[in-house]
């Protein structure tokens, strides 16, 4: 993408600005659609209809919400640490947005085609933790602080299963470059890593139980990383009022919200790229190509988004100790077993 822009605009800074802003063109409409989708899905699960008046089936309601948040007065609590309080939403969004640079949206577009893509995403998305801690601390509110402490403990714990699950996929694809990981899985649904990748049949059959386990665990850990039910302890409404963003309102709150939704897509995108073939069509060469690739990629991502919404509105919330128990004593040991087994099968 960079080369294409450079050939049109010459070697200017503008090239980098445009290349960096491109994912935003996707994230903003995506967030509006997902906010609407979340409300509608939850409403239909609960025998309600949700938004009905702002446009057909309330399709314009998220835009109205954004307009409302834009018009709100930008307040900072009197005793808050003003600098940190103002910076933290941007920090949270930055951490998420920076990770989008290494996401291959289609065979023709990836923000930055770096060889350490997977590693980069795991590393850069940890910045979110700092933003959340800043928000909780700067608000000067005990509930916010609680939310921040919980959030840090949770995200740090769940990064380990996430990274290990990614490792399982990386062992099969033999690459950390997400574009190459996607190319590796070309040729239809049977070549996706979750079904063992394009390896000899016997190896595939042996691999499937372990790749499936790793995939499910990656998804669970992903939900925990974006702080959604059943792992929404940092903002557990019934316990901590609203957690680390209790004191936020207006656009700052909107940016937290945007970051959460962007993060939801990020985990979905990583899971889709590493395990479900990324931008590959499930039918081999049928309906493939850069444009179709983008559509397939977004479809896979949105499928996970739907799953996340579905889970959120079905399950109760875990307790802090149960959350830690699950990460360290259930998910991580399972993944160690998976890594061991996958390594063994690949070497044989």
């Amino acid at each position, binding site marked *: 993408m960079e080369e294409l822009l450079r050939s049109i605009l010459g070697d200017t800074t503008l090239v980098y600005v445009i290349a960096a802003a491109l994912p935003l063109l996707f994230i903003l409409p995506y967030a509006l659609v997902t906010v609407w989708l979340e409300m509608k899905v939850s409403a239909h699960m609960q025998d309600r209809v949700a938004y009905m008046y702002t446009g057909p089936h309330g399709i314009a309601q998220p835009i109205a919400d954004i307009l409302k948040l834009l018009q709100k007065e930008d307040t900072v609590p009197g005793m808050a640490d003003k600098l940190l309080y103002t910076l933290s939403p941007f920090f949270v969004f930055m951490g998420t947005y920076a990770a989008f640079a290494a996401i291959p949206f289609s065979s023709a577009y990836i923000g930055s085609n770096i060889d350490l893509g997977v590693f980069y995403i795991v590393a850069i998305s940890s910045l979110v933790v700092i933003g959340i801690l800043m928000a909780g601390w700067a608000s000067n509110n*005990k509930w916010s602080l609680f939310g921040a402490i919980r959030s840090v403990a949770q995200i740090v714990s769940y990064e380990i299963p996430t990274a290990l699950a990614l490792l399982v996929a990386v062992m099969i694809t033999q690459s950390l470059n997400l574009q190459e990981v996607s190319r590796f899985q070309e040729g239809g649904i049977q070549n996706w890593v979750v079904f063992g990748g394009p390896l000899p049949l016997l190896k595939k059959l042996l691999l499937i139980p372990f790749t499936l386990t790793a995939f499910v665990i990656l998804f669970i850990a992903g939900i925990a990383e974006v702080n959604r039910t059943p792992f929404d302890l940092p903002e557990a409404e*019934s316990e901590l*009022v609203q957690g680390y963003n209790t004191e936020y309102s207006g656009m700052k709150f909107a940016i937290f919200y945007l970051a959460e939704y962007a993060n939801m897509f990020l985990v979905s995108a990583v899971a889709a790229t590493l395990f479900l073939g990324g931008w590959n069509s499930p039918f081999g060469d049928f309906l493939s190509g850069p444009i179709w690739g983008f559509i397939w990629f977004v479809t896979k991502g949105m499928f996970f988004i739907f799953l996340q919404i579905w889970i959120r509105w079905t399950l109760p919330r875990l307790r802090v100790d149960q959350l830690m128990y699950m990460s360290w004593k259930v998910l991580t040991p399972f993944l160690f077993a998976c890594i061991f087994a996958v390594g063994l099968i690949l070497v044989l």
Partner: protein
Amino acid sequence: MNEPKVLPTDYVTKPGEFKTSTGKTLRTDEMIINMGPQHPSTHGVLRLEVVLDGEIVVDVIPHIGYLHRCFEKHAEHMTNYQQVIPYADRMDYLASMNNDWAYALAVERLLNIVVPPRVEYIRVIMAELQRIASHLIAIGTYGIDMGAFTPFLWCFRDRERILDLFEMTCGARLLYNYIWVGGVSHDLPPGFVEKAKDFCTYFRPKIKELNDVLSFNEIFIKRTANVGVLPKDVAINYACSGPMLRGSGVNWDLRRDDPYGVYDKFEWEVQIGKGEMGTVGDCWDRYMVRVREMEQSVKIIEQALAGIPEGNVQSAIPKRIRPDRGEVYVRTESPRGELGFYVVSDGTASPYRIKARSPAFVNLSVLPEISRGCMLADLVAIVGSVDIVLGEVDR
């Protein structure tokens, strides 16, 4: 993971010191945090002063009175015994029918009158419908406390049907002023019996649905079993009643043990906590007692609807009641427990003194006892399982 939680014996409750790996000394302290009066899960305007050590609750001090409306003093200043009923409505605003009945029953005992049989049946039907409606809110909000939002709206959907029945009977959906001293304000409207029967057949499968999504959910059980265990003796010592007491395995229900109305004519069973998922008297037991009581209430309603006799709905009493000098205490089983009215008459047209024994107030008093040493998230679970209505706690 499902063992009962034990508070460590060497638990530090004073400011202490903590040595870091680099040899630095850090001061540690407890944190006092105000939960409420405006907190999403204190079910109204309860304020809990919580002393926390990290996530662990060291002590809880409930502060009440934010919704005090001088019910008892107001009642003394009424010109008529009947005028107290709208105030009784507003005590436990989720179970107005039960409040009205308890008060009306107290005045009727004072007057020594017997109400017509049709009235007794109507009252049982109304009280049991109200019990289901009240338990639905208790269960639904408990789901929210645990982070499950969907069961809450399912409960409200079913409660709406009950409120429709009430609306068709007396025009009101929340504060009915329906059960009067000596009878009820109106007879049942035409079509009520059929609609109530429809509700019973509609509601039974919904309980199963609720059990599937919430009661037997693995996470929900993990969150509630072995949490906030209220042993039998503590429950009795603190005078707990209702699902609180039955959840601890005490087989005690005033509808059976001190029968009023026509409860002794129906076939039903008192539900008690058995510790199926953990210890007897934990939050899950208290929750499950409520779910099972709804099934029993449906049973009672069906029998009452089948056996409802024809007749008057008002006994012949003067418009201005002047009971003889005397006093009476009447206790009934409200959805929250033993609701009692102590009424003193000095022979005039207004009560000399009224004292309401509200179950939510008494049940709340046991909260600090059972929540010491649990986690902050468990405290929310325990408060939810006590099922308080602040209108009744503060009166």
